[in-house]
């Protein structure tokens, strides 16, 4: 069976490589894409949308439907993972570990046991993986604001440089995942609970689809941002640029929330109490 698999893979690979022989040379100006498709966008993207980054203009404006359904797919995948893996049972079958902060002594509370009354000096720790490292925690706390700021820059500056909603959202989500890694899952969830992350991801998709629907209400085609000119108080071309920014923010919200939710649910095996 294994030999058969290897033969099939090698054969498929050879056929694919044979297929690339017919491809035009990389960067060939006479290739069909460079002759008919690219010149249109290179000539029209600035007059149409006033966005210097052609990739962003194509993604969020000319091919707005694609990006909207990509966002919907990311959202659906995240929701499906959370529905499949989530365990709603609140009572943990495992015993819990607590650390006495002043002395550093670890105590174990068996199932059904309770903490002593009025114990403020005890903090819950993970039973499998207990990283207690001041350097990591402080380092991450110093770095995370800059990562988040960079993520916002990537989202907002997608018009002028590489970047946009997807990348910025992933970077923002990575900052929160880094926080969850450096501290623990429960501390991260006090800042962004999984409920909020699900809500944010649906809000992101709603912002995108709502912008499209708003254009429809204002008398233009779905996702034709020129219709927003009256609302935003700018000329139709600048309105397209602003419309792109609005939908990018929606994409970023959805992607960020889905990434964080996926991390929570996978690293805690659906229990959301103890994680990586």
């Amino acid at each position: 069976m294994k030999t058969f698999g290897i033969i099939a893979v090698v054969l498929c690979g050879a056929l694919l490589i044979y297929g690339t022989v017919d491809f035009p040379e990389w960067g060939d100006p006479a290739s069909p894409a460079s002759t008919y498709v690219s010149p249109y966008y290179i000539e029209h993207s600035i007059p149409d949308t006033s966005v210097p980054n052609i990739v962003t203009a194509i993604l969020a404006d000319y091919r707005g439907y694609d990006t909207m359904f990509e966002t919907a797919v990311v959202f659906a995948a995240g929701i499906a993972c959370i529905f499949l893996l989530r365990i709603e049972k609140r009572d943990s079958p495992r015993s819990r570990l607590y650390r006495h902060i002043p002395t550093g002594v670890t105590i174990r509370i068996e199932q059904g046991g309770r903490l002593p009354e009025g114990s403020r000096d005890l903090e819950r720790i993970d039973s499998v993986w207990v990283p207690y490292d001041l350097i990591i925690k402080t380092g991450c706390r110093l770095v995370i604001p800059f990562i988040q700021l960079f993520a916002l820059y990537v989202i907002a500056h997608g018009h002028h440089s590489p970047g946009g909603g997807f990348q910025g959202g992933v970077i923002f989500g990575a900052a929160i995942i880094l926080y969850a890694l450096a501290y623990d899952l429960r501390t991260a969830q006090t800042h962004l609970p999984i409920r909020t992350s699900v809500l944010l991801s649906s809000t992101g998709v709603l912002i995108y689809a709502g912008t499209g629907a708003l254009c429809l209400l204002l008398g233009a085609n779905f996702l034709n941002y020129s219709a927003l000119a009256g609302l935003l108080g700018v000329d139709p071309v600048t309105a397209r640029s602003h419309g792109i920014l609005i939908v990018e923010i929606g994409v970023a919200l959805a992607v960020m929330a889905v990434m964080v939710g996926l991390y929570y649910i996978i690293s805690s095996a659906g229990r959301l109490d103890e994680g990586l």
Partner: protein
Amino acid sequence: MIWQLEFIILILIIFSGIGALMVKDLLGAGILFSAYSFMMCLLWAIMGAVDVAFTEASVGAGVSTVLFVAAIFRTTRRSKD
């Protein structure tokens, strides 16, 4: 672009791809997959597709590796085949 650099990156991509399939340790496979993604990102950047390279670096090499590690942490580390 210097073709030697592209060639080295291409070789590294092929080796990390095969290595990710071959290696028994799933954590190692995840890290090799991350290396694969990062090399792909370099190759996209060399070919001028900077937006794709950015996405590959953040999604492929960044977050998906964390998700792999989180999933391996909750299952076994050794692969059966």
